[in-house]
Every structure is written in C-alpha cells, then in structure tokens.
C-alpha cells in the first residue's frame, strides 16, 4: 500500500512538472532554441511572427524547434527543417501535420546522410558541402515521391558515385516516379544508370523526352521501356568512348562523370553499402 502511494506520488509529480514545463514554454524560449539550431535571427523572427499569425502556440513551435536542434546535433542540414516548418505555416497546414512532416523529414535526412556517406567519397563530401545538401534534397524528394529506402538501396546498389552523379540519378528517378513511371521499372533502369555512370546531361535529356511523351498522352510504362533502351545505347557509347580516352583514376573521362568503380575493371565496390 505504501509503495502504491509512492508510485502515485511520483506520477503526480511527473504530471505536475510536465504541465509546468508546457506552461513555461514561451516565445523567447522558442527564439533561444532556434538560435541554438543556428537559425538566423531574422528568420526565426519571421517564423515566430508567422506562427503567431496562424495561431500556433509557443509550446507547439517549441517542440518543432527542439526537433531542429536535434537535427543539427545529428549534423543534418537543419535549414531544410526550418524551411519545411515555415512552408507548413505559410500554407496554413494544421500543426499536427507539420509535426508529422518534420518527423518524416528528419528521419529521411538521417537516411540520406547515411546513403551519401556510403556512395560518395568522403573527400568530396567535405570539399562540396553545399552540393551534398543539394544531393540530400534530391534523395529526400525521391522518398517523398514514394521511392522507399529499399528502392533507393536497389537503385544505388554498391556503386560509388560523384555528388553530381548521385544528384542526377536521384533527380531523374524522382521525376520519373512523379510522372507516373512504375516503381519496378524506375528501380531497374536507374540502377543501370548508376552502375553505368550515366552523366547528368544524358539523364536530363532522357527525362525531358519522357516528360514530353507523358504530356502527349503516352503510356508511362511504354515510355519507360523507351527510356531504358535509349539509356543503354548511351551507356554502350560511353564505354566505347572511354576505351580510347586517357584514363585517370580520380577524374571522369571525356566529360563523363563516372566514379572510380565505373572505370574499366573497377566494378562495384567490394564489401560496400
């Protein structure tokens, strides 16, 4: 009986503390959290002003700010969370939905970071942080478009890519999926593109042809087959071209952006991702 009373007392204290913490959350505290997450002062002022305008309370926005701080601690591009939060606020999205979107975004970005570290050389990630964020944006856009992490693992396989290659593969895969191409076809075709070291211009050209075909009312599955045929032809041409081009282990040959494992005899990275 005495233990029961103690437990009850503990629960009561916990509840009171929680209520007190919730009540104590204020706009200056939210501002301090945003500052901790490196959000520029002007931006956090606008976020708070917008939140007040749509009637969001400090405790709710404080919880979102906590998520941004936690994303920063995970070394994720927290500015993307701030943007998503702001986007939700200006579009008048309900608070619960913004909460879920931020949750999804943080999880997605954590996965994207791992994918980048697994498929791009560390030196390039260090040297081109802004491009790394762009590539993460593309991968995250793909996850939002319905390509799951499993699909991305199948697309990227064990390849080692440059940031530009990875961004191009991610962008094209997402475009194809958004335009209605069947997932299985996207996965198989884009894995070939990644493995074959297709460059951004080739993929962009093929993607435009695909979207043009869809705009004219073509069936996505058939257009996808056409895309794959054209891609394979381009990749064969690249292989033939690279046989005569001077080889450098650190540089794609003849404008082609193929990574180290794409060089003749390179193959997939052993024991990789």
């Amino acid at each position, binding site marked *: 009986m005495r233990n029961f009373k103690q437990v009850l007392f503990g629960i009561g204290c916990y509840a009171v503390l929680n209520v007190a913490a919730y009540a104590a959350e204020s706009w200056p505290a939210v501002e301090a959290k945003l500052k901790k997450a490196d959000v520029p002062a002007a931006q956090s002022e606008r976020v708070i002003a917008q939140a007040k305008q749509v009637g969001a309370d400090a405790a709710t926005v404080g919880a979102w700010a906590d998520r941004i701080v936690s994303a920063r601690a995970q070394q994720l591009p927290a500015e993307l969370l701030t943007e998503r939060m702001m*986007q939700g606020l200006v579009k008048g999205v309900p608070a619960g939905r913004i909460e879920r979107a931020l949750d999804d975004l943080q999880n997605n970005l954590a996965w994207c970071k791992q994918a980048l570290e697994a498929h791009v050389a560390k030196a390039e990630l260090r040297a081109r942080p802004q491009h790394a964020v762009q590539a993460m944006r593309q991968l995250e856009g793909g996850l939002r478009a319905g390509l799951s992490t499993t699909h991305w693992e199948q697309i990227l396989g064990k390849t080692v890519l440059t940031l530009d290659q990875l961004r191009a593969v991610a962008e094209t895969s997402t475009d194809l999926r958004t335009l209605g191409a069947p997932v299985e076809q996207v996965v198989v075709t884009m894995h070939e593109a990644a493995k074959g070291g297709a460059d951004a211009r080739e993929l962009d050209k093929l993607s435009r042809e695909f*979207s043009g075909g869809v705009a004219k009312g073509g069936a996505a599955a058939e257009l996808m087959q056409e895309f794959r045929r054209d891609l394979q032809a381009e990749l064969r041409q690249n292989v033939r071209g690279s046989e005569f081009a001077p080889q450098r282990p650190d540089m794609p040959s003849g404008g082609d952006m193929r990574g180290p494992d794409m060089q003749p005899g390179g193959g997939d990275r052993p024991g990789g991702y």
Partner: protein
Amino acid sequence: MTNRQKQDIDEQRLDAWLGSMPVLPPSPGFVDGVMRAVRNPKRSWHQRAWDFCFAPRVVRFNFAGATMAAVVAFASAWMLWNASPQSAQLAGRGAATVTQATVKVRFTLDQQDARRVALVGDFTQWQTQIPLKRAPDGAWIAEIALPAGDYEYMFVVDQTQWVSDPRAQRYRADGFGNRNAVVTVPSV
C-alpha cells in the same frame, strides 16, 4: 545587594582561594608533551592546496571597482562571442551567397481573373512573398536572380489560393499532401 556587587565578592573569594593554593612545579615531560600537541605538523601539498581553495576569505570591494570589473567582464564575453567560429561561419555563409553567380529566372502564371499573384519558394525560405506584375497580355510575371540549383516554389493567388505552376519543369510532393513546382537553375 546588586548582582554586580555579588559577582565582585565571588571574584575576591576565588582570588583568595587560588592564593592559598601551593605552587607546584610541572611534572617532567609536561612542557614537551604540550608543545608536541600544539606544534603545527608538516602538512602535505594537497592539504595545503585544499585549504588554499576552500578556506573562507573576506573580500573587500567598493562599488566603483565592482562596476568596472563587471563592465570589463561583459565586454570580454561579448567580444569572445562575436569572434567565435559559429559567428564567422554564419557571416561566411552570407558572403558566399552574395558573391555566387546568379541567373535571371522568369516565372509566369496565366491567371487572368487574379487580382494579385505572389511567388514563394525555397529561394525565400518560404518567408517572403515576391509579387508578380501583370503583363499587357494579362499574364503575371516575375523575374528573379537565382544561383544554380533546384528550387521548389508555388504561386499564391489573391493571398489565399496556393497554385502549382502548370508550366513547371517538374514537381515534388510538399510533404503536406500538395505538390510544389520545381525550377532548375543551371550553373553559369
């Protein structure tokens, strides 16, 4: 008789009693024993360090000196904060944006019945609305300079209606059940 007088009498009696006592010499070794007990033993360095740190001290100060010390401490902390790597990084980020090469991008929306159209997107962190101008043919147009990259955006018609650009190069789900238009700015 007052208490004071009683106390004086007691003291006189005590003096008389003490004077009647025989004067005895101390036993051999008594003086040495007392001196040994009161002599300060040699203390180890960590005991001295402990005392140095934790022995209570009296600090004397005046108001002018304390105010001056507080001002110096505050100014030092402010200067350290401004010279921190975090601030330097933020300043650098802004500078990079200013010097980066940009490309003028034209956004167009053919919405004849609209009274006001604005553009919002990644390029303004979804914060500032860029107003579009009505062209003679009735279309709404804005031109903005952007650095290379992909940008998600939407139009806001009459401050209430969110519209995806029907002529966009591509689209992305916005995470809230709608889709944003995407514009790709090539590097120059």
